[in-house]
């Protein structure tokens, strides 16, 4: 259904969550609202709009504009309706001749210092100031425009995405308050007093040079054209909108894709989206230009060898070529010689189809997903201890937390919208424990200071988790009643004996972890005694050789202190990509079918066999690293890789490249010629999230709709490409819409039984499990009992990684992300986000830099046991001595040339977070970088030949 563009409804002030109801009268009509509701909001909820300028329901009421004045029976004067709360029996009048006169007078003053260029203004027709002037019937300005004014104020166009036109500013402070209350960055302020008052970024700097993180909250809040998206200035007001879900991180923000025809002109965070509630970050809000970037490949291509030019072909030819080669490979090398890798960037329906094609079409279980290299230990660890491979909470639940542990995660950079939510709770007084080798922003941010920062040495998370548990049990701080009621006691007693051992005491573990014993003891006491304790963790926990042990250690801590099963507590994995949770849910791992049911389970297999009409292999297939090994051995010859760039994202790049070169038929389905596609024989053009229907499942288990905003540039959405290939292989699929795929998932998966597109339309989103027992979904898990019945205290023996620092490699490298870029950067590097991060840098402590004669900005050679690369130095005390850090957003950086193929013992998740390295000052790129650049040039040339040939034809 076409949804014409209109601004999202704004009730003026935030909703009250009080359960007490108050009845009053507004303009003679009886209205009942929760106590604590403003008169303005009560009026809006009863259909009466009170004019306003400084009020918006995303921000606390402020009461500065004096436009929302009302009359209240028995009260003197004209109270501001935004700052006056309802009272029982109150009689409010929103309209009278006197009110109208007062409002007009105020408005007249505003307009006397505002340009009257409405017809050429970028927000013409979409401006609250303009609307309000209209509503108030302003017809003239008695004061003229000759006096002192701000009409010639300079425009700041430094930010790539929005402009700041001070001449249009009414100093309502909405932008300043949005930066504080919504985003929590405090980058904006009102500088000066009286007539001199003006919005200022940091210390009167350009937006680009200020502390602004370009989340867009200020732009959203601005009631005039002062802060306006450049895309709107260029294209004008949108004419329709499509509600969809962001395709960046695992927060899963809901957006209105605001359109002019098939062109996205703005992404506006959707206020009814429960994951983000109207907030966004610089990626989701602004970095959508990649979707129509000139590098998009929209025509299928094939070639026999990676040294041949590509040949553009029809979908039919590409699919039939692939099917023929896959069949030939299986005939020669056997049924298990081919497989597939699906992506956490694709929809649930798409990854479901990929695993279906592998199991039912390829006839094996050689399917894996990029969750292998990020959160597979979460799946293993939480399934083992709690019984379900998923986080336990909603994001909103953090508002009830009294103490928050952030471990191996950097929410303000990698999950910024959740980071803002967390910062809000911390400003309200919740305590914070950060366990991270680096001083992440949360350790010390405006109005936030971590109560404890435990700067763990990379690779020793399990040591710290065991020590925290040791302190809790040795000081009698555990919640014994909860444990006895909720957990398996024999296993608990066994674990208790293990953890009480003195070797786990902080005084003994300090030598390994580098965390001072006193700090660790204090942190343990705080977590155990502060009330509701919530743990949020990320890849700094999972991407270790003990990643699964660490996840189980986190679950143990939560059970030990009774911190699972209600609001404000829980174990919360912050998922890296938009659909990590969903891709795991959909049976993308080689050992399990959708819903985390093992492939060896005959009853589950029979269910799928009945639906799909085939017999399924009961043995697990190959994981991604096993695929690489088998390829190098000559046993694995065909790979279908959808939406994942393994050549850049997987560790030990040279090993990965050797594997890819050994594959006879590599099929890549992607929107760009990514690093992996340069080794491919078939390129199937992918569709961006704007070009298809489907669903994503975020880190809260929240299933949200992805809606098609524009037709797929290649003619096919990804699910249609997979379906075409499956049919060519004889695996029949006849879906006409992704909703039919979801219906099949729901039929076959108990935790999804109640999910349908119709219910998603009705509810907006659904947190699984959703079935007859929980028809509206499950926001909080494990409320009365754990999914596995009794909680299981898993033993968490610490086994050090084999990757050790020594004299030759004395520093430990750890990796992470930066706010403006996303993973391998294929999307964000093709946007103006590169203005903030044009290259990956190596962070090094001043002491380590001085020892090596390295200065800020120097080229630095980084050598590990498996490879070397060169990056520029960023000297900072954010890392401690002995630890260096880099991001991995640019292919030429070769961050994974130096990471090893050590992996988690249980899941083979790579150990990206610990690599022993040496640094030295250099003057030239590494050999690998030179080869990479040359290979890239060759492959770009082969692509251009295909495109030129097509142009001639």
């Amino acid at each position: 259904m076409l949804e014409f563009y209109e601004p999202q409804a704004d009730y003026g002030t935030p909703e009250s969550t009080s359960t007490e109801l108050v009845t009053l009268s507004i303009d003679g009509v009886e209205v009942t609202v929760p106590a604590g509701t403003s008169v303005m909001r009560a009026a809006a909820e009863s259909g009466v709009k009170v004019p306003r300028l400084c009020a918006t329901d995303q921000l606390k009421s402020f009461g500065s504009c004096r436009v929302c004045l009302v009359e209240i029976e028995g009260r003197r004067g004209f109270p501001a309706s935004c700052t006056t709360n309802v009272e029982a029996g109150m009689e409010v009048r929103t309209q009278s001749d006197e009110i109208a006169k007062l409002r007009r007078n105020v408005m007249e003053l505003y307009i006397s210092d505002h340009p009257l260029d409405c017809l050429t203004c970028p927000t013409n027709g979409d401006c609250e100031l303009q609307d309000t002037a209209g509503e108030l019937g302003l017809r003239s300005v008695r004061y003229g425009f000759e006096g002192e004014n701000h009409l010639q104020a300079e425009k700041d166009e430094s930010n790539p995405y929005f402009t700041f036109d001070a001449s249009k500013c009414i100093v309502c402070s909405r932008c300043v308050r949005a930066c504080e209350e919504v985003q929590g960055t405090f980058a904006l302020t009102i500088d000066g007093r009286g007539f001199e008052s003006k919005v200022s970024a940091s210390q009167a700097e350009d937006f680009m040079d200020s502390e602004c993180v370009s989340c867009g909250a200020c732009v959203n809040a601005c009631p005039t054209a002062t802060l306006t998206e450049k895309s709107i200035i260029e294209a004008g007001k949108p004419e329709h909108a499509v509600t969809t879900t962001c395709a960046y991180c695992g927060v899963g923000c809901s957006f209105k894709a605001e359109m002019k025809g098939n062109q996205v002109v703005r992404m506006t965070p959707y206020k009814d989206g429960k994951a983000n509630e109207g907030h966004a970050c610089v990626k989701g809000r602004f970095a959508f230009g990649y979707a129509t970037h000139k590098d998009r490949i929209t025509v299928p291509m094939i070639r026999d060898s990676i040294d041949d030019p590509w040949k553009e072909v029809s979908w039919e030819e590409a699919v039939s070529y692939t099917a023929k080669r896959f069949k030939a490979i299986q005939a020669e090398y056997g049924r298990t010689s081919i497989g597939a890798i699906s992506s956490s960037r694709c929809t649930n329906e798409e990854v479901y189809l990929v695993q279906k094609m592998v199991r039912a079409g390829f006839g094996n279980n050689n399917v894996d997903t990029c969750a292998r290299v990020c959160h597979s230990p979460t799946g293993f660890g939480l399934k083992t201890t709690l019984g379900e491979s998923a986080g336990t909470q909603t994001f909103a639940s953090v508002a009830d937390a009294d103490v928050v542990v952030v471990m191996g995660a950097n929410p303000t950079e990698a999950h910024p919208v959740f980071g803002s939510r967390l910062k809000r709770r911390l400003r309200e007084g919740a305590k914070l424990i950060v366990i991270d080798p680096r001083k992440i922003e949360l350790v010390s941010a405006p109005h936030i200071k971590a109560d404890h920062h435990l700067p763990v040495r990379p690779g020793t998370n399990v040591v710290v988790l065991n020590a925290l548990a040791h302190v809790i049990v040795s000081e009698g701080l555990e919640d014994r009643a909860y444990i006895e009621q909720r957990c398996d006691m024999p296993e608990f007693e066994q674990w208790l004996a293990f953890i009480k051992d003195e070797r786990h005491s902080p005084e003994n573990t300090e030598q390994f972890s580098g965390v001072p014993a006193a700090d660790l003891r204090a942190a343990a006491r705080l977590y155990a005694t502060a009330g509701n304790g919530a743990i949020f963790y990320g890849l700094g926990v999972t991407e270790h050789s003990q990643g699964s042990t660490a996840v189980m250690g986190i679950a143990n801590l939560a059970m030990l202190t009774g911190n699972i099963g209600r609001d404000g507590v829980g174990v919360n994995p912050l998922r890296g990509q938009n659909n990590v949770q969903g891709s795991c849910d959909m049976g993308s791992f080689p050992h399990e079918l959708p819903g985390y049911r093992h492939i060896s389970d005959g009853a589950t297999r029979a269910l799928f066999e009945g639906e799909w009409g085939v017999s399924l292999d009961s043995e697990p297939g190959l994981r991604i690293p096993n695929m690489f090994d088998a390829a190098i051995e000559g046993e694995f010859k065909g790979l279908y890789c959808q939406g994942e760039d393994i050549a850049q994202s997987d560790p030990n790049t040279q090993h990965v490249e050797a594997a890819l070169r050994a594959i006879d038929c590599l099929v890549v389905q992607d929107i760009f010629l990514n690093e992996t596609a340069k080794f491919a024989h078939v390129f199937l053009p992918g569709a961006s999230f704007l070009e298809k229907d489907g669903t994503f499942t975020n880190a809260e288990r929240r299933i949200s709709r992805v809606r098609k905003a524009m037709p797929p540039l290649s003619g096919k959405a990804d699910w249609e490409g997979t379906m075409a290939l499956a049919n060519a292989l004889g695996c029949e699929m006849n879906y006409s819409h992704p909703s039919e795929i979801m219906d099949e998932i729901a039929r076959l998966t108990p935790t999804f039984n109640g999910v349908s597109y119709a219910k998603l339309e009705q509810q907006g989103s659904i947190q699984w499990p959703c079935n007859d027992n929980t028809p509206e979904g499950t926001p909080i898990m494990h409320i009365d009992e754990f999914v596995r019945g009794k909680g299981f205290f898993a033993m968490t023996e610490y086994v050090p990684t084999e990757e050790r620092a020594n004299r030759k490699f004395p520093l430990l490298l750890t990796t992470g992300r930066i706010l403006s870029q996303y993973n391998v950067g294929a999307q964000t590097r093709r946007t103006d986000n590169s203005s903030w991060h044009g290259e990956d840098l190596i962070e090094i402590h001043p002491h380590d830099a001085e020892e090596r004669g390295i200065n800020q900005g120097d080229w630095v050679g980084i050598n590990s046991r498996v490879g070397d690369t060169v990056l520029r130095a960023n000297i900072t005390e954010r890392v401690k001595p002995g630890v260096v850090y880099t991001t991995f957003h640019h292919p030429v950086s070769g961050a994974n040339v130096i990471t090893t193929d050590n992996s988690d013992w249980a899941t083979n998740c790579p150990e990206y977070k610990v690599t022993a390295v040496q640094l030295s000052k250099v003057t030239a790129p590494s050999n690998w970088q030179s080869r990479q650049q040359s290979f890239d040039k060759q492959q770009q040339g082969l692509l251009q030949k295909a495109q030129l040939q097509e142009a001639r034809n």
Partner: protein
Amino acid sequence: MSASKLDRLVKMMNQIALNMSANGTDKMVADQVAQHLEKFWSPPMKNLITEQAAGADIGLTPIAQLAVKNLLVMQEAKRA
């Protein structure tokens, strides 16, 4: 089959055994290791480790060796 592939499997198996070492007696741990392999390893990986470990020292720890024996029993039971 290259040495490196077997080396990787041996390393993985020893790593699993070591990480499970606190779970109980050697016999219990070996049983859990075998179950882990049965659950997560593909048949070619399981076959390679059982074949190569038969009568030869491929570098497995004692518990991992015991686990291979358990795995063989599990595989034979499945075949039966």
